[in-house]
């Protein structure tokens, strides 16, 4: 009973915050509501007994991405005001696309027969995760590392002063 109440509350907070992100007139308020939505998603991961994903969600989405967004907004002049224009000429196509995506996702969620595992989640998932990443899934793991390294080097080259 208690997990369902907590799930309901965190789902409500996540969805409410996500809605506020879209409808808010002030872009900085939207950014802070985005943080709340990320935190709500992290709490859902905790309920799913995936503490590693939950902590990484906080670390990357709140600690890095949200702070970057807020910082970028603060450094940009004039977009922190309340008279943000929320629509442009293509809003109808965007709305159609979003509705289509929603329908497709909803259809997938309801039509696929999701496998249900009845066994108890092992307590120490992070050790298993680490071993799997460096044995079974070592190639995708290394490819991701190389991609990140390339992004890092690329950003340094772009950021360097031209001579």
């Amino acid at each position, binding site marked *: 009973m208690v997990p369902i109440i907590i799930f309901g509350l965190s789902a409500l907070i996540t969805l409410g915050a996500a809605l506020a992100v879209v409808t808010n007139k002030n872009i900085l308020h939207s950014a802070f509501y985005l943080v709340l939505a990320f935190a709500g998603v992290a709490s859902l991961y905790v309920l799913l007994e995936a503490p590693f994903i939950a902590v*990484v969600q*906080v*670390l990357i989405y709140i*600690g890095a991405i949200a*702070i970057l967004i807020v*910082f970028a907004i603060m450094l940009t002049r004039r977009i*922190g005001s309340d008279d943000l224009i929320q629509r442009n000429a293509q809003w109808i196509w965007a709305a159609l696309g979003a509705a289509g995506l929603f329908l497709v996702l909803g259809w997938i969620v309801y039509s696929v027969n999701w496998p249900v595992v009845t066994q108890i989640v092992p307590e120490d998932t*992070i050790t298993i995760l680490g071993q799997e990443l460096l044995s079974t899934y070592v190639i995708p793991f290394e490819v991701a590392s190389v991609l990140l390294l390339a992004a890092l080097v690329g950003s340094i080259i772009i950021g360097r002063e031209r001579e």
Partner: protein
Amino acid sequence: MADLINLIENWIKNLLLGWGASAGLTGFILQALGSVLVVMVCFAIVIVLIWVERKLAGRLQDRFGPNRAGPYGIFQSFADMIKIFTKEYVTPAGAEKGLYNIAPVLAMASVLAIWAVFPFAVNVIGADIHVGVLYIVAVGAFGILAILMAGWSSNNKYALLGASRSVAMLISYEIPMVIALLVPVLLSHSMKLSVIVEAQEPWFIFVAPLAALIFSISSMAEIGKAPFDLLEAESELVAGYHTEYSGMKFGMFYVAEFLHQFTVGALITIFFLGGWTGPMAVRWPILGVIYFYGKSLFIYLVISWIRLSLPRIRIDEMLDLNWRFLIPVSFVNLVAVAIADRVMMEFTLARWIYVLVMFGMNMFILWAALAIAERNDQAVEREEFPPRPVAVPPGVDSK
């Protein structure tokens, strides 16, 4: 008697169960009581710490420090506390009310949340989660967010500047801090804080002194106090991100800062000074709690000593120290420790040889890094400006 805390816990548990409460509710009440206790101990310690720090600052700067309220001024913090409670809250015109009021609470919460996972003694552990180290790093993000909120919502250019500086500093110093934290994780094969504490034979400060040094420097930067107090440099920014705060709202930032410094002391204790371990700590868990707080207090005093002795560094020096020294050294250190640990695992060596090799290797990396830094420093050509006196005595030509 040896296990006072669990004795009390069991007594409350049996009392509640005797009153007919369900097992789930009893567990919830016990956890809530435990969290309240940890938070209250934190606040009580901060009140004492503020007095200790002011007295220490006074002594280091050849003055008395607080000496009016009570013997040796020990009631000064209480007097300040009562004063700050009665102060008026001023919200500046044009401030974002909501964010402005949330920011101090978030700043405080982000520091207190770290205490949730600490092991206080062999069987007195908060939430002993498997991702303890990551949790500590992740929760720190809320502190940065609180500074950004405070700086932006105050509708004050000084506050905004302080907040922007804080992001440049706190985010960049997080990198060496996290990499230095990986060394104890590597040596103890776990991210669980209780396992890290128990794996320390001897303390990790002897096995990985370089990681301890890097972690200490970068977490001192994370506190945002001198010598890294660019985000509230009085001479340039009034008070940085909390310029506009008054009364208890300012008090929360102030207490959060002190508590953060004590928390850093506790983190260094857990990762490098053996946490609660000490003579008789396993048989007498209450001794473990005393060791833990004692070591943390010692590190707190060392940090105070450092920050009271050093002047504030410039913003370019701050970034140079991080990106050109701490980050490369911490990467080299991590790789070297990983390789040395793995190689020595192949041979069954006595523990003291292992420690000696690790210590020597750390010292060699530190020496090499300092030598390279010295050489690079001499290679950089610095533009020198002649002194420009602002006040010129009358009758003297300024040229």
